[in-house]
């Protein structure tokens, strides 16, 4: 009996690891944008929702091959990210920081309502079900394994991009000193726009992986939006590595909490943990 219990617990821990990969991917783009532009996109999860609808629509309604639909969705959300920066964030860049948070909250409202208007409140499924993978007596969802792999790949590519390319170096420079870099001939406006598009593309990538696991509906952003912000804040807003650690810590709370109690209790524990950590270390695990 106790052996059986242990193997289910192990399964919960490993599933938490996979969930952590998904969370890490979700928070990657948001974290990048915060680190560079110093703005929290409250509507980040809604951008992901747009990507999910794009995949659904192109694949199911227009019969595009699924990979083509996914590529198009990534491009679309990248464009949305750039547009969001250009038309919504830029006008309030010099306003109170809280206005930048609030204006993206308005976008959240808008996207959620526009999705309801355009697609109705139905839950829509792309109809691709990946098999589950069995290891011994444990089973894992292949979609989650894929998400984990994509998250690891995404973080590696981001790391390489930021450290090794000219643009990446410029982005890091801007994030370290917003005032000086323009004097050094780095155009902050262009860097911000590029970063926003990049953040959008990462949201699009997350959308492609989420759409394999979850049905898309207008309120889906509310179900994983809050946890995404908390991961970024917990890791230290702007710290990619911190965000990665936070994603796995919170995912374990949710997975193990959900194993012993119900799924909501897992989230409940994760959120309470977040609040407590904020009081002890407001700058996050690896914040400056």
């Amino acid at each position, binding site marked *: 009996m106790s052996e059986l219990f242990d193997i289910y617990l192990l399964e919960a821990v490993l599933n938490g690891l996979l969930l952590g990969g998904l969370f890490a991917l979700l928070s990657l783009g948001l974290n990048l944008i915060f680190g560079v532009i110093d703005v929290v996109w409250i509507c980040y999860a809604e951008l992901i929702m747009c990507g999910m609808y794009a995949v659904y629509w192109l694949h199911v309604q227009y019969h595009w091959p699924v990979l083509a639909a996914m590529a198009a969705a990534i491009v679309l959300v990248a464009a949305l990210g750039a547009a969001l920066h250009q038309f919504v964030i830029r006008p309030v860049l010099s306003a109170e920081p809280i206005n930048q948070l609030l204006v993206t909250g308005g976008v959240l409202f*808008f996207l959620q309502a526009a999705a309801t208007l355009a697609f109705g409140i139905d839950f829509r499924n792309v109809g691709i079900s990946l098999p589950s993978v069995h290891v011994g007596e444990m089973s894992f969802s292949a979609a989650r394994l894929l998400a984990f792999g994509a998250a690891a790949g995404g973080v590696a590519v981001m790391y390489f991009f930021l450290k090794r390319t000219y643009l990446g170096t410029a982005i890091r420079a801007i994030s370290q000193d917003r005032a000086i870099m323009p004097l050094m001939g780095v155009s902050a406006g262009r860097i911000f726009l590029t970063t926003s598009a990049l953040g959008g593309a990462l949201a699009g990538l997350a959308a492609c992986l989420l759409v394999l696991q979850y049905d898309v509906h207008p309120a889906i952003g509310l179900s994983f939006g809050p946890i995404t912000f908390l991961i970024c804040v917990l890791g230290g807003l702007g710290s990619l590595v911190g965000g990665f650690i936070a994603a796995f810590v919170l995912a374990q709370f949710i997975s193990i909490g959900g194993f012993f109690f119900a799924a909501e209790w897992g989230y409940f524990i994760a959120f309470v943990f977040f609040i407590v950590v904020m009081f002890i270390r407001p700058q996050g695990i690896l914040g400056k």
Partner: protein
Amino acid sequence: MSIGNYPLHLMILVLLWGYIYTSWSVMGRLGMVSFGHGAFMGIGAYTVVMLWNHFGLTPWIGIPVAFAATAAVAFVIGYPCFRFKIVGHYFALVTLALSEVARLLIVALRDYTGGSLGATPVTALSGGSGVALGALQFESKSVWLVIVAAFWLGGLWVWRAVDRSMGRLALQAISEEEEAAASVGIPVTAAKLRVTLISALMTCAGGILYAQYQLYVNPDAVSGIAISLQMVFGAIAGGMFVMLGPTVGAAFTLLLAEGLRLAFGNKYPALDSTIYGALLVLFIIYMPKGILGAALSAFKGRGR
């Protein structure tokens, strides 16, 4: 009855939400942008309904219990936040977590709360009696209009009292430059905590009124991120720096929704929130003082 039930219902909703948005703006206008007021509303609504349904305790006992719980939560969250100088979007995100904690708790305790399906207070309105004072249930909408109007006026009075107090000047100094305010001897933590408690208790009362009026509560309607954002944006749309701003915000959103519903029927669900969302973005960018705030400045500008 002279006015129909439908206009009466709308008036009650405008005043009720006007009161709740006003409660939020009591602290929101002083630079403490809370995304956690859904938690206080949820505590109010659910404490009273749960005590009544499961223990048969009258709301007259439930209300003080709800107030005590709200004050405790506001203190437990507020004190460390203010003590450790968690401000701006960090404060917003910590309080956002709080509103989700409240929602998750209500959903997770589904054996008692009914989970996402919500709960209905056990009716005390039987045998043709339209008033059950002990259960705080009234059939007549006119009675509710009077009650809600009284709370709304009370809310405006508190708003004004806070606005005129020395504490407000101190808090404004704090919201602009916290370190400087502390250096001239303003007790930053205590001042912030006081306003937070006032705002939280007012919102808790709003949750109780909502539950007793609608005679139905569910976790998404009274807690969680969605309702918290609704309060923030209602106050911003109307203008959180003027006394009647939050009320104007409530009236505006409700009239927009009802107007579009009358014009198009139910053909375009969520058309009102789509327009509202787009307007919010425009307001925050171009009219950060909100509808009433901008109207008043324009009026003053012409008078000069």
